[in-house]
């Protein structure tokens, strides 16, 4: 027995025709990539780290403008580990989350409703496209006039920018729903409302998630900009601009890296959520 060659696909001797999802089979069947290939994603950061370090060490860039990478990373870790950076980090997270939640809670229903009556969408399409193309930061002074120099202002403008993205994506998700699924429901005798809640809403989920993911990035960008320029006394944007004013480059880079990590983490979080909730996506 042991002399027999090992079968390439390890089919278990289970009850007749054991059923396994095709995805699971697919992930078992192809040969594993060599170990070094799994290290590929780390090459970029390591190269950047080395370049950064050499540039500072050789004096190519003055240490006054660019701290050595280890110092910046040290400041980041110290700052986030209960330091003052943590407080500003959390303030920015909270503002982004507020803005995002408002945008999602209002934008998704509005988008789905607009999309399901295409005439309604066509009549506001220009407005949505126009303001979606307008850099939201250009509207900061306008929002200053409405909301004053307040915390609400930063959240409001970020929510506005994110809202347009959510509306646009959800509406197009409904408009471009697979016609055949709608027809299938129709032929089974579904009413307009049943088609809406059983098919269109679900069909729009995947594009809606794309919208939510871009919206959270947009909310973060606007919150940071608003924190820089709308008389804030907290938040990562405020911290970055303050550190720059006093040439505290170590702290500035630490804050920039913190903002980057936040954006990256939010993106990953939404990708994971999407895979969990829209489990049929891409199948």
């Amino acid at each position, binding site marked *: 027995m042991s002399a027999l060659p090992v079968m390439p696909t390890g089919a278990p001797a289970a009850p007749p*025709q054991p*059923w396994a999802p095709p995805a699971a089979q697919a992930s078992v069947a192809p040969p594993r990539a060599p170990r070094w290939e799994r290290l590929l994603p780390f090459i970029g950061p390591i190269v950047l780290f080395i370049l950064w370090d050499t540039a500072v060490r050789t004096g190519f860039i003055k240490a006054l403008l660019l701290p050595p990478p280890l110092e910046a990373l040290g400041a980041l870790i110290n700052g986030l580990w209960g330091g003052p950076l943590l407080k500003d980090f959390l303030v920015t997270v909270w503002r982004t989350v507020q803005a995002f939640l408002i945008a999602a809670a209002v934008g998704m229903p509005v988008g789905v409703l607009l999309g399901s009556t295409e005439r309604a969408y066509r009549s506001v399409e220009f407005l949505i496209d126009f303001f979606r193309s307008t850099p939201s930061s250009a509207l900061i002074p306008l929002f200053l006039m409405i909301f004053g120099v307040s915390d609400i202002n930063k959240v409001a403008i970020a929510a506005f920018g994110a809202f347009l993205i959510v509306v646009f994506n959800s509406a197009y998700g409904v408009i471009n729903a697979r016609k055949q699924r709608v*027809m299938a429901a129709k032929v*089974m005798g579904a009413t307009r409302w*049943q088609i809406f809640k059983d098919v269109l809403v679900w069909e729009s989920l995947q594009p809606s998630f794309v919208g939510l993911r871009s919206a959270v990035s947009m909310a973060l960008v606007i919150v940071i900009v608003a924190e820089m320029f709308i008389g804030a006394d907290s938040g990562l944007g405020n911290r970055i601009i303050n550190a720059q004013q006093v040439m505290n480059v170590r702290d500035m880079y630490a804050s920039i890296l913190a903002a980057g990590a936040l954006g990256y983490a939010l993106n990953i979080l939404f990708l994971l959520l999407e895979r969990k909730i829209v489990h049929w996506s891409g199948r």
Partner: protein
Amino acid sequence: MTVVLNAPVVADVPPAPFVPGPAGTHITIRGLTKYFAGWPLYENFDLDIPKNRIVSVFGPNGCGKSTLINMIAGLVPIDRGEILFDGKTLRDTKIGYVFQNYREAMFPWMRTIDNIAYPLKLEGRSKAEVDRRMAELVASFDVKFDLRRYPYELSGGQQQTASIMRALANNPEVLFLDEPFSALDFEMTLFIREKLQEVFMQTGTTMLLVSHDLEEAVYLADQVLLLTKRPTRVAEVLPYTDARPRTVETLSEPSFIAARKRSLDVFQREVRR
């Protein structure tokens, strides 16, 4: 009372009287007219489809085989004409429909069993009724795969089996099948063909089958409806009366071969015309 003197004479052409089909007719189509890009696809098309029979629709490319059953099923609007099911309109008729592309016909956000039960849910049936009907369907289809899976986790044949079960869930009066085997491999085609025949023998549901495979069309049919090139008319309705269950042996019987040959002759005559 006001009367306009010398008013222009406006008279309506009286509508053609409705002529019912012969006894045993299920679906009556009268004066069906459909334009496609300004050209008539169907013009004053009349057809009687018998009850409790399988009718296969066959014809040249672009003659509108699928369009015909889609118009009957209400998926494609008609420009003129009347379609009645036992004298009722579509609104009062329960129908089932099986699409060629099962991938885009099932709802991937529902488990397969919920997909199959969906027509019953639309009718507002109770949980007990739904469960009873599902048990019936699973037994009659002899389902071996796990219906708690999502449709995209099943093979193509399993998905198409599930979508046929969904189409039959609420005991429709008519079952429409639009090239149901075209996206399947041969093994699955044979299997589902047998299942359909079994279901038909159990229930006698009127079925309208569009097929691009003549052998398949004849094999399942009581009648082969052959269409002409557009503007589409009925070229011929050929009966095929071999007893059911038909099996693989049927395919080599003289009566089957004769029926297929006659269908092919009519088809070729129409294509060359």
